[in-house]
């Protein structure tokens, strides 16, 4: 994963919190992806301004006992493969 990549959600996709189901959702035409809390937390940081390094650093600050870099990288590559993040 390129450390300079600044991931952002694809233009047609909305990330929102569903207060009825108490879940984060990715909403796109004809499709809803229900996110687990970790995925929602990562995708909220994908605003096009933060590099992947900064995203990993922010998450690491929140979870100092966990090694997040590999998991975050793998997750971001996967959602990019789906076309949800650029």
């Amino acid at each position: 994963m390129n450390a300079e990549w600044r991931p952002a959600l694809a233009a047609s996709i909305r990330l929102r919190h569903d207060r009825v189901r108490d879940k984060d959702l990715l909403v796109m035409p004809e499709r809803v992806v229900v996110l687990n809390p970790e995925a929602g937390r990562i995708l909220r940081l994908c605003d096009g301004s933060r590099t992947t390094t900064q995203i990993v650093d922010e998450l690491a600050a929140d979870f100092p006992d966990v090694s997040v870099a590999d998991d975050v990288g793998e997750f971001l590559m996967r959602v990019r493969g789906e076309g949800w993040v650029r």
Partner: protein
Amino acid sequence: MGPESGVVDPPWALLAEVTHACPLHCPYCSNPLELVRRSTEVDTATWVRLMEEAGDLGVVHAHISGGEPLLRPDLAEIVAAAERAGIYTQLVTSGVGLDADRLGELTDAGLHSVQLSVQDATAAASDHIAGRRSFADKERAAEVVRDAGLPLGLNVVLHRHNLTHLDAIIRLGVEWGAQRIELANTQFYGWALRNRTALLPGRELLATAEETVRRWRERSSIELIWVVPDYYEGIAKPCMGGWGNRSITIAPDGRVLPCPVAYALPDLSPPNARDHSLAWIWEHSPAFNAYRGTAWMREPCRTCPQREADFGGCRCQAFALTGDAARTDPACHLSPDHHLIQELTKKPGAAEFVYRRPGA
């Protein structure tokens, strides 16, 4: 989750039929034979309230449809209300009337995506099915949607008159910049049921079409949704993802239905959003609980391992073919009425269809 558990999960999607008026006359129109008159349509304030209630209830997607929704001059206000409620909106349109200005008004209101109907691959063939010149409007509509950067999907209803052109239809979708094409084999309700013999394709035509879809999927990234022709598959479709399970339809006059063809069920007595809250309708109305879950089922559905997957198929199809909405969908090969469908697929097709028209 069904009513027997005492908990009803919230709905995901709302189909808002804001008007039944339409410039097109497609012979398979999914609107009821008895179209809602414009004079009885619910007003702007009611739609605004319904969008708020839908958001509170848990609706995530609103498909703003018709008829032709662009015929409502207050459409942007309805879209804006959905956006305020956190609902992702898709305009479902014939494209007639969708120019850059109108689309701009809707995107300013928060519109997220557009699904455009196309009747066939060429102007002459598409206009013939639509019953009026409209292909050029569709082409322009696709262009303005693309220019606005909105996701574009096409919806093509398939039948014996256009299935032979499927390859050209998919190519058209690619050229028009669609990300997705819904290839919707005609479902036989309402107008399509009236025109069934003119529309029902032969088995060979469908086999060739499936091969065409398979080849496109190999070489193109466009998403192709193949809505199965259930008269031929021997398998009942999980209609609406289950009755009162995922989706709400609101008719132009405020009637609320578990599915957009349930108008045809005579004993349903759909509640009206003018009289009840959407939450009460979803959770407690007799109409939404009539076929919810599995407790209403009879044999062979009641003990079938597929009952939680296909929900016994389509209630409206069961009614249309047997006169009893609680029977197993005759599309299922396990249905005691399956021969009804098998006989229909053996009849030679008649060539002419009648167009949808008000008061028919």
